[in-house]
């Protein structure tokens, strides 16, 4: 009997009529309906046009305005798939820090759907340092992209092995120095292309901004960012 990827309960497949009257193939269901409900999609609500957070209007939120003042030349246009809530906190914990690798499949389908919309962008995942890779065994972002069966270019590299972002305070994070650099051997490949930076989560936005800055300096014209959660 198939069990839910998240709650491990046996799963009953409920037929979706819209699916039946379409030409889509049978895709195995991974998550049961109850667990599915815990995820709140940001695509269904209005979001801030800067950071992609749920907001009352699409105008820049306060946080984005602060960023705007700080870096007037960086205009981040971010999109997130899901709201970062208790469920997502737990998911992150299990996927990232407890190493439950197969959880990457949970959002593969949605991620793929979303990335398909950026078909003329080159996807660049946020890298992790060698030491972290050794410790964790996988880069959580490129693993997500692999699961979504989307090609990507590992243009960025993390030279400095720093403390985990998640264990820092907001202030510490904002003060972090640029940890990324560009793999020069891949620069030619992305010549003149638009780039989509993908990460697992947007918390303060500093990681993404560092990556943005890195690519901006390279002379990339169009840069967009996307994360699973916000």
């Amino acid at each position, binding site marked *: 009997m198939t069990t839910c990827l998240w709650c491990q309960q046996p799963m009953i497949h409920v037929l979706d009529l819209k699916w039946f*009257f379409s030409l889509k193939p049978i895709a195995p269901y991974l998550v049961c309906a109850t667990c599915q409900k815990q995820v709140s999609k940001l695509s269904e609500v209005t979001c801030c046009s800067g950071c992609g957070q749920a907001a009352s209007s699409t105008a820049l939120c306060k946080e984005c305005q602060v960023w705007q003042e700080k870096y007037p030349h960086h205009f981040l246009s971010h999109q997130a798939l899901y709201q970062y809530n208790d469920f997502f906190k737990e998911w992150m914990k299990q996927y990232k820090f407890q190493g439950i690798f197969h959880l990457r499949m949970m959002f593969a389908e949605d991620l793929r759907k979303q990335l398909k919309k950026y078909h003329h962008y080159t996807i660049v995942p946020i890298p992790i340092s060698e030491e972290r890779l050794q410790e964790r065994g996988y880069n959580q972002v490129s693993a997500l992209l692999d699961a979504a069966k989307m090609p990507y270019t590992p243009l960025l590299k993390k030279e400095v092995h720093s403390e985990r972002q998640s264990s820092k305070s907001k202030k510490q994070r904002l003060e972090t120095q640029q940890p990324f650099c560009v793999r020069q051997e891949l620069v030619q490949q992305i010549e003149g292309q638009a780039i989509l930076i993908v990460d697992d989560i947007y918390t303060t936005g500093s990681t993404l901004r560092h990556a943005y800055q890195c690519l901006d300096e390279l002379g990339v014209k169009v840069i967009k960012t996307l994360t699973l959660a916000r």
Partner: protein
Amino acid sequence: MKGYLIFPGILSLLIVVALFYPNAIFIYLLLLLFLFRLGHTKCLKVISLTIFCGLVVLLVGYFKIYHVSTLLNGTETQLQVQVAPDGIKVNGNLLRLQGSYQTDKGKETLILFYTLANEEEQKAWQKQSDPLQLEVIGTLECPEGNRNRYQFNYQQYLKHQGIQWVMSIDQIKKQQVNQPNWWAFDVRLTKLRIQAIQTLEQKFNQRSFSYIVALVIGNGDFIEPEYKEIQQQLGIVPLFVISGLHIHFLCQFIEYFLLRIGVTKEKSQCLLLVGLLIYGQFVGFGVSVMRVVLIHFFTFLAALLKQRFASLDYFFLALIVSLLYQPQFILNIGFQLSYGVTAIFLLFGYLVQPLSSIKKNLFLSFLASLFSAPILAFHFFEIPLYSMLFNCLLLPFFEWVLIPLCFFLCLVGLCFSATSLVLTLVVQLSNGIFLFLDDLLMFFGKLPYLTFVTGRLSIFTISIYFCGFFGLLIYLYQPKKFYRSISSILVCCLFILVGSIQIKNYFMAGEVMMIDVGQGDAILIRLPNHQGDYLIDTGGQISYEKAAWQIRSNEQSLAKKTLIPYLKSEGITRLETVFITHAHLDHFGALEELSEEIQIDEVVFPKGSDKSSTFSTVLNKLDEKGLQLTPVLAETTYQKQSFSAEILFPFKVETGGNNDSLVLQTTFGTLSWLFVGDLEKEGEAELLKKYPQLKIDVLKIGHHGSKTSSSAAFIEQLQPTYGLISCGKKNRFDHPHKITLDQLLSSQVMIYRTDLQGAIYMKYMPNEHEPFQKILTND
């Protein structure tokens, strides 16, 4: 495969429909679309299992429907037949047996009819609950096909059950009880059921009894025709076939009880499995009961095998199994409504979940009504307009009051004796509820504009309607705009339905139809492009005195049984003019009942025929209703809109006898027609004297082909190419007489007869006409 049983379910359904309606092209289109979609699932397991299941259904269905062989040759007069206890039906003085004839080559089922001689015999048969072995003498006949268009086809109905012969028994020579073997549980259970029904019939009054049998056993035969008609017009028929809640609760209760007394879960599930099968056999696996029993059976079976499927899967499994068991179920209205509405509830249940309970109820009855509308229209040729309202009102009442009550009454009735205090008390109390329900239905039944007559819907229209219905529900429905979306769906569905009917009417050819009304005349004239419908005579039955015991419960008048359903099946709600040729019952008998259901604008009859007392009573009643009554005499032209006819007879005021018949001459297409009513030789001579040059193409032969009409001079003068005779099959007057037939043959008239060929019709357009066609196929 889990969660995807909808694929084999729908394939089986389409295949069985295609087997029954091989000419409906649209079904093949749907099949192709379905296979296309199936291919796109890209799941080998689902595709192969679905195709396998489809092939099994196709093979089994084909053999069950088409591959019917017989052991009899039709000349046997003496047969040994075995009759199961549920094969015996007594209706008034008619005994109907479904028996099986057994030889070493195999077994064949046949239907036997016997007219009971007296009340004692009737009582004895009514008490019969044993399997019987009979030796009978009688004559075998092929069952009769439908005699009018869209009428119930008894021949096909029987053929689909593998029955090819009907025997009318003259004498039952020997009758002995066949004791069933100890292992024949099915026979024993059937016997138990018959006995239970007999017990219930004794202990309850007719009203309670009919509801108990209809709702607990799933057999609606005992509901009085009057109430059946009201249920049909109100559109609450689905209520009788959809609920399975009582079985659900019963299973839960028993399971809980077994667990409490210390039986393990596995064992109690095993017990329930067996119990369900026994229950199903006990109530006789009627279509709706079978659905509920099968669904629960599969649920328990899956639980026992440590599996869990979605409820839709159990449903489709039950559908496939019942289609394999008896493919002809699909033609049954109970099956269509019961499975259809359940499927709708399961498929669209997710839409209901966020709604409040009132909206939930409203939405479910909305779905049930919209779904059942074309099915009801297919069977009864009309759509109940308020069905949504009534279903909404009565659904909770049925589910929470009536069905549990009937179940309870059934148990009490079987456990307590007729004289016990408990039973009398319960009967008294419950009677009030049934009385209230019947009064309520009666009250609703008197409301105006209950139904909208659609005529017989084609499979194409129904398919289009369902495609629209599903599409709208899936893509248009928005829970946030509840009332707006359901009303727009409602409007769209009605638009599809009414639109398709209107388009059909607009492109309609004209038609002259000599309806088969048995011994009598009734000729329907439909002008091309829906310009008006006219009727010449209505037909009618001459009734004979009968003792109370002889009267059959479902016996209906000719108007109710044949004429009105036929007119409705053609989508006719209004007749411009009804011509009554003369004042005999076989020509105007059905007029009064007809006027109650179909709007008649004008009645035309020969002046003087209102002197007949029976006819004048009818005319008076029609006059009270405000119908226009027009007595006419020759020689005039009757003109109404684009219809015109010459009235050639009678010249003077008479008394409405045969020789005073109204004679009409008119043209359809390029043919000239003469309708002479029952005009006899004297009248014919008078007519000829007046019009010595009269020539026509089609003659409605006078007086049903009697020798008193159609004199040689008359036929030779008119020189008709076609002669139409309307008379009853094996009528007591021996019409048409051989002399008349010989006379017509010698004048080279092509004869068409309703007694042999069923209804006769000709389609025409203003300048052309098609050849005559007949309804009955086995000439």
